[in-house]
């Protein structure tokens, strides 16, 4: 079993296999399952992601609170008819990331990656690359296994919970996972995947979890947009041969320590940050009334 990014890379080098393959084989071994069973389960997860993206960009979804819904669809339509500043691929990823998170906020069905609040980033990046790289279904599944391998390291060495480590632990982790997988899908090396992960997570360090009214909506939907775009930019940096001065494992450790020192008001308690702004407070009151929370 690999415990950190360094060990993961050592296995890929020693055996000359991609990161996704290391993850698949580890899953088979630890859980005593066949390759077919492992692949089939990931295939079902991929289908759920695909359906959530489709729903979010086509349907006018709306959350129970009314705070979010329709942004993914609006951006998706804007890309089709406008000459955008950021370019179609980046914005396609952003639209699909927001769409997924809006479906989540509407209590729709999603696949947590690694959490529900950050569930838009990985599918957003994956389905935008699908348009450009035209991967086979198997390659798309490999994207998810590679994402999972990096998420596995973060979850075991730091945290993937906003309540424990802030948004950096959720959207930050998701973005790092997506960046690493994007590199593999684009033909980069395992080392480049690790660099992309390190660069992405570095740029999301310190991000707090300050949801308005405690709901997984504001700013979560747009944080997923930031995570997806950050992932694609970092993947390109790594593919260009740019390296992170701080190795991935140390960035993950820094993320953990930052989370540990983050005040509780900024860790999913709806007591600080955006939740504590006048507008944040007003929205909370409109949704829940005067009941102290």
């Amino acid at each position, binding site marked *: 079993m690999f415990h950190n990014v360094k060990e993961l890379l050592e296995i890929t080098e020693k055996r000359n296999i991609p990161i996704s393959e290391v993850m698949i084989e580890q899953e088979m071994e630890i859980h005593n399952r066949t390759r077919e069973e492992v692949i089939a389960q990931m295939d079902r997860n991929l289908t759920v992601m695909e359906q959530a993206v489709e729903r979010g960009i086509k349907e006018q979804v709306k959350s129970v609170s009314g705070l979010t819904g329709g942004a993914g669809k609006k951006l998706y339509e804007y890309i089709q008819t406008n000459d955008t500043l950021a370019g179609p691929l980046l914005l396609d990823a952003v639209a699909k990331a927001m769409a997924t998170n809006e479906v989540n*906020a509407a209590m729709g069905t999603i696949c947590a990656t690694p959490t529900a609040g950050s569930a838009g980033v990985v599918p957003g990046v994956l389905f935008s690359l699908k348009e450009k790289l035209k991967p086979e279904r198997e390659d798309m599944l490999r994207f998810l296994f590679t994402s999972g391998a990096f998420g596995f390291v973060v979850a075991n060495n730091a945290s993937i919970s906003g*309540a424990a480590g802030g948004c950096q632990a959720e959207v930050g982790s998701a973005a790092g996972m997506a960046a690493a997988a994007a590199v593999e899908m684009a033909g980069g090396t395992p080392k480049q995947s690790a660099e992309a992960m390190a660069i992405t997570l570095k740029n999301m360090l310190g991000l707090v979890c300050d949801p308005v009214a*405690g709901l997984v909506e504001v700013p979560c939907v747009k944080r997923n947009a930031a995570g997806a775009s950050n992932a694609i930019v970092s993947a390109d940096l790594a593919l260009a041969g740019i390296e992170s001065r701080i190795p991935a494992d140390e960035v993950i450790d820094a993320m953990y320590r930052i989370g540990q020192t983050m005040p509780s008001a900024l860790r999913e308690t709806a007591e600080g940050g955006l939740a504590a702004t006048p507008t944040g407070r007003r929205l909370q009151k409109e949704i*829940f009334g005067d009941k102290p929370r």
Partner: protein
Amino acid sequence: MKFRSVFDIIGPVMVGPSSSHTAGAARIGLVARHLFQTEPERADIHLYGSFAKTYQGHGTDVALVGGILGFDTHDTRIPEAIKLAEERGIKVTFIEEEDEHDHPNTVKIRLGKGKEQMELMGISIGGGKVEVKELNGFKLRLSGNHPAILVVHNDRYGAIASVSALLAENEINIGHMEVSRKDKGKEALMVIEVDQNVDEELLAEIGTLASIEKVTKIHD
């Protein structure tokens, strides 16, 4: 290594909006339901910490009740679970507690049917993963690193041997085991951490052994 599977990271498939507050809550409810084995008439749900503060917006309430009704994290009936419980004649009560527990996402569920009663305390640790900390007043010390099965049984000779023999027969290795009892000859609990996955068929078989009351697994 708390997280052991790629599907802890890419997954679970779930109804939104929160993996810890919705999917985790549903899973704790579902563990309670599996242990209780039958549909309860009453469910008293005590919420602590972040669960107490944000349960309505996160659908923690409907998810817990959905789990108690036997729904998995991806069951699209979860948003309607409280209404469905009402229709099935289950009296559900939510209590927002002020006390702080070690973990911000803590819930205590008390299920009852006639004279039968069961109490479980669980926590949701992120990404939909959950841990059961207490069952009927028994403190559980699970590492969370391995799959675990819980066996509620009567404190009689041979009960422990029969369970471990059956596990051995199925080539399942026990990594850690604890046995506790309320009183000599009374209700007792085995907590068994194993190295391999225990499938539903084997769980059911354990349930048929002499002196065994209830059996469930905590996580894969």
